[in-house]
């Protein structure tokens, strides 16, 4: 029994506490910052229930709501912090600031809830304690080796998101193509809707496995890219799609080394 526990503990540590290059996480940080900046405009429009006045449905009673001026100042501050995250200046501080400001809006009122904002908030939290600024950053020389815990954690989170998104769709109405038709504004039951609905579920179920398997991860990334491109073009989901596709670099470079940057890493 003890031997099994030790073996399992060793595998756990080897996975979560492996050392590698910060390049992949830094590349993700850049794409994620662009996605976050893109999503801010949307978010500012959809999250106005964080502003005081009128009806509110708080997650936590007593959570401070914002005046209109504070609300827009908060989004302006997020834009500034997003830019710092993008260029790699004060990366942890920028991510921590984004985590606080995005969290303030997310938790201010349940009427604000968006799955996309929730994902962005969690990733900001992970980046705030990560070495994402240790490469591809303006303010410092790149580090040769860091713990890959944050890279693994974001990859695990992306896996969970795909898995639950697929499970949520496994019901007769979605499988028939009717839900997809309604979402896409196709009230008539077009013949392609049912195969498309099945394809979305199949891809969302396959990606959580295929992205982790060395032999399939490149094909999986291409298929995922195609799916998110379709989401972006048909549903105007740009920021979320970009963030999800950007996360593929974390799977494609499991040791953190970007192929084109491998030789430039200082020893």
């Amino acid at each position, binding site marked *: 029994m003890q031997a099994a526990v030790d073996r399992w503990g060793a595998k*756990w*540590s080897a996975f*979560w*506490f492996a050392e590698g290059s910060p390049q992949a996480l830094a590349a993700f940080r850049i794409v994620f910052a662009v996605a976050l900046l893109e999503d801010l405009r949307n978010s500012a*429009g*959809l*999250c*106005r*229930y964080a*502003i005081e006045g*009128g*009806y509110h*449905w708080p997650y936590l009673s007593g959570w401070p709501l914002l005046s209109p001026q504070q609300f827009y100042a908060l989004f302006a501050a997020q834009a500034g912090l997003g830019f710092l995250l993008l260029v790699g200046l004060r990366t942890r501080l920028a991510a921590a600031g984004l985590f606080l400001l995005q969290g303030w809006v997310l938790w201010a009122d*349940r*009427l*604000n*809830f968006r*799955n*996309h904002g*929730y994902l962005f908030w969690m990733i900001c939290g992970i980046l705030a304690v990560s070495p994402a600024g240790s490469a591809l950053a303006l303010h410092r020389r790149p580090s040769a080796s860091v713990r890959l*815990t944050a890279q693994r*954690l974001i990859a*695990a*989170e992306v896996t*969970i*998101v795909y898995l*639950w*998104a697929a*499970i*949520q*769709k496994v*019901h*007769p*109405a*979605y499988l028939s193509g*009717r*839900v997809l038709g*309604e*979402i896409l504004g196709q009230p008539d039951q077009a013949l392609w809707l049912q195969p498309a609905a099945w394809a979305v579920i199949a891809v969302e179920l396959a990606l959580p496995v295929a992205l982790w398997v060395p032999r399939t991860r490149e094909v999986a990334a291409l298929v995922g890219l195609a799916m998110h491109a379709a989401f972006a073009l048909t*549903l105007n989901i740009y920021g979320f799609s970009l963030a999800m596709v950007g996360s593929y670099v974390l799977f494609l470079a499991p040791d953190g080394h970007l192929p084109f940057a491998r030789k430039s890493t200082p020893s």
Partner: protein
Amino acid sequence: MPSGDARRASTWISLAIGGFLATQVLVPLRGVIAPRVDTRADFSWSMYSHSYRCQAKYADRNGPFDAFAELKRRADAPLLLHREALVPWHHWLCGQHGGAVTATVRCAVDFAPAADLVPPGGDLCRLP
């Protein structure tokens, strides 16, 4: 061989990772188990997965009124038409309209037959 401090730090980080992953796996379960007319099931990654077709009609002593007008002025009307969201919402509406608000709120989720989310035509302000 890692030092005692490093080992303790790793233990705490492992616990944090385990807790985070367990939360992420378990919290969305509610969105699968609970009926969709009862809850919006936040944090369950259910985006673009379900169809909602709802009708809501509200009236007070002066006749029918647009209950969602105030919300729609502030942002896109949020998805309020779930039983758990309607309880605090109706409480607020009753306060705004001095009691005696009646409503019919019916939703068909995923093209199933429509369900009443409140007793049709009943006084919302007298509901428990």
